[in-house]
């Protein structure tokens, strides 16, 4: 499914920086991150736990609260900078143009309101709609995401995990936004249900033509589902590329190790290594390339001192690695 990259991106993130001010110090959770999401595209964001994926999702929707502070960068959605919007503009903008599906559907639904009420709330907050009409829309939305519309008056706890996740998606779709941010929408679910939901999301995307910023740490799912993928490490974007390309030809040592970290059910059965060590503490990240302490092919002086920037290594494939240009990488790993 080719995406025409000639279009203007729906979402343009430029040099985003986010910090958490904690007792231990400043956590630089997102450091100088830039990427684009194009119309009708699924852009995947992957990386180890704590590398800043959710922080990006929250920054893009501007729902970060202290102690998190956006300390730099721009987030342009359809050309307007979200970070510059006033409260009321933002309130209107959000959900109409961009919505978000949270990590856990269990907690994203208010336990004391029915699913219907929560959908209707979203609709009425933006468009002056009579109650009856809003309810009809809610029924339609449930139908769309594959929930029996008869469940409209059910409370969240009366629904199964899969249904709840669908309900959250229905809320996200309520105002037909152009961009939906999905932060690990299926982690709590079983594979079979996950499969169903991912299929439905894909169908909906094709039907309504929105873009998705898709966040997960399940690489198999990501590769299968996304058009393009960004790999994050310790608050930085280290590689961006179309998914097939990144799966078959990863260029960053971290990505390579990552791709080698999960067994598959059809591929060759081989010994795998994983990545030794642990992700760094973002209060005091390593100097130079943040991955260098765990990197087996790090260049003695350079990687410790010089911070690599994202560079295009092949068409639509960017990598932030000093070795990316040199062929050495291909044989390293």
């Amino acid at each position: 499914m080719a995406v025409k990259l000639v279009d203007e991106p729906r979402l343009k993130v430029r040099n985003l920086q986010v910090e958490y001010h904690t007792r231990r110090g400043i956590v630089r959770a997102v450091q100088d991150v830039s990427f684009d999401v194009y119309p009708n595209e699924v852009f995947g964001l992957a990386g180890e736990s704590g590398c800043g994926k959710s922080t990006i999702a929250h920054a893009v929707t501007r729902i970060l609260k202290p102690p998190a502070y956006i300390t730099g960068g721009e987030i342009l959605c359809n050309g307007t900078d979200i970070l510059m919007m006033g409260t009321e503009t933002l309130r209107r903008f959000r959900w109409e143009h961009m919505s978000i599906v949270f990590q856990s559907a269990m907690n994203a639904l208010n336990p004391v309101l029915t699913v219907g009420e929560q959908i209707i709330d979203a609709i009425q907050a933006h468009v002056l709609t009579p109650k009856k009409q809003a309810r009809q829309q809610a029924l339609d939305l449930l139908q769309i995401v594959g929930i029996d519309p008869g469940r409209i008056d059910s409370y969240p706890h009366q629904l199964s995990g899969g249904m709840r996740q669908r309900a959250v998606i229905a809320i996200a779709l309520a105002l037909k936004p152009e961009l939906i941010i999905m932060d690990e929408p299926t982690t709590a679910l079983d594979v079979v249900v996950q499969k169903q939901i991912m299929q439905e999301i894909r169908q909906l995307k094709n039907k309504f033509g929105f873009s998705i910023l898709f966040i997960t740490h399940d690489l198999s799912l990501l590769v299968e589902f996304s058009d393009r993928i960004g790999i994050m490490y310790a608050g930085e974007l280290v590689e961006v590329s179309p998914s097939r390309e990144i799966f078959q030809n990863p260029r960053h040592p971290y990505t390579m190790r990552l791709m080698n970290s999960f067994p598959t059910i059809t591929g060759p059965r081989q010994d795998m290594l994983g990545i030794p060590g642990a992700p760094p503490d973002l209060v005091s990240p390593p100097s130079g390339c943040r991955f260098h302490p765990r990197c087996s092919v790090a260049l003695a002086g350079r990687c410790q001192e010089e911070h690599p920037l994202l560079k295009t290594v092949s068409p639509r494939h960017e990598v932030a690695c000093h070795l990316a240009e040199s062929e050495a990488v291909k044989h390293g790993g």
Partner: protein
Amino acid sequence: MAAEKVQPILEVKALSKDFVAGNVLTRRTVKAVQDATFNLYAGHVTALVGESGSGKSTIVRMIARLYQPTGGQILFKGQDVAHDRTRGRLLKYRSQVQMIFQDPFSSLNPVHRVRHNLERPLIIHKRIKRRQDMREQVHSLLRRVSLTPVEEFADKYPHQLSGGQRQRVAIARALAVEPLVILADEPVSMLDVSIRLGILNLMAQLRNEQNIAFLYVTHDIASARYFANEILVMYAGHIVEGGASEELIQNPQHPYTQLLLSAVPDPARGLRTAEVEVVGEIPSLAEVGLGCPFAARCAHVMDKCRKAMPPRTQLSETRWTRCYLYE
């Protein structure tokens, strides 16, 4: 991986467990596990896969003697241990069958240092002759799970460790008593992808070097393929299919196994796989009737599926399933 299939070290026979849930007014029985039968062999990994709530942990916990089985037998070296509650014999059993838990963040008591976690089994099971040996013994355990420098790790509290390191401590704790069997209940599912392999590789190494029998519980069938010799597929309290792992994955027989495999995202299989048609969700175990629990979602459902659970059909020497399609 030609583990000699000699004498099984642990046999599970027709094991079942009912939980009574709710209070006096809302009392109902949850049939968490029904009629589970399988064997564990030394130096052999048996994987138990299935969706959440299918009863995997319940089986493990019965074998670990944390739950009392409702029915069936657990034969360890030919002796039934399921109904033996004598403290002495229970301790003896525990010195040979150990367990690793799913969540490394909660399976280590936050108030105890790493050292304490390793000393306790040594003391309880008298694996130590002299007090002075303790230190050395603890260090050697840590070395075996690659937590070096050992001196430093021994004095840490769990919150000072990363997830992978904690799971290594948990493994070291299980190893302390030199067990013959290790029950690993989703040992890597809470860990980051990058760390998972380290733990799986460590366990594989133990299996190979010390001939330990593993029961590996997971919902990640791909990791089962990677690590296990044999896979058992569980659905709603029943083990519905079993067999040598590669064989089972490449050629699933039971409709549920087929569904499960088709749902697993797998970039290697080529992107955009055929879309699967799935209806319904896993049933509530409180409501399962007599028949095959998968009947409601099965495309090949027959009348008799709803009446009784199909018996075990041996497909080959290494494969079996419980489905009327193969009777």
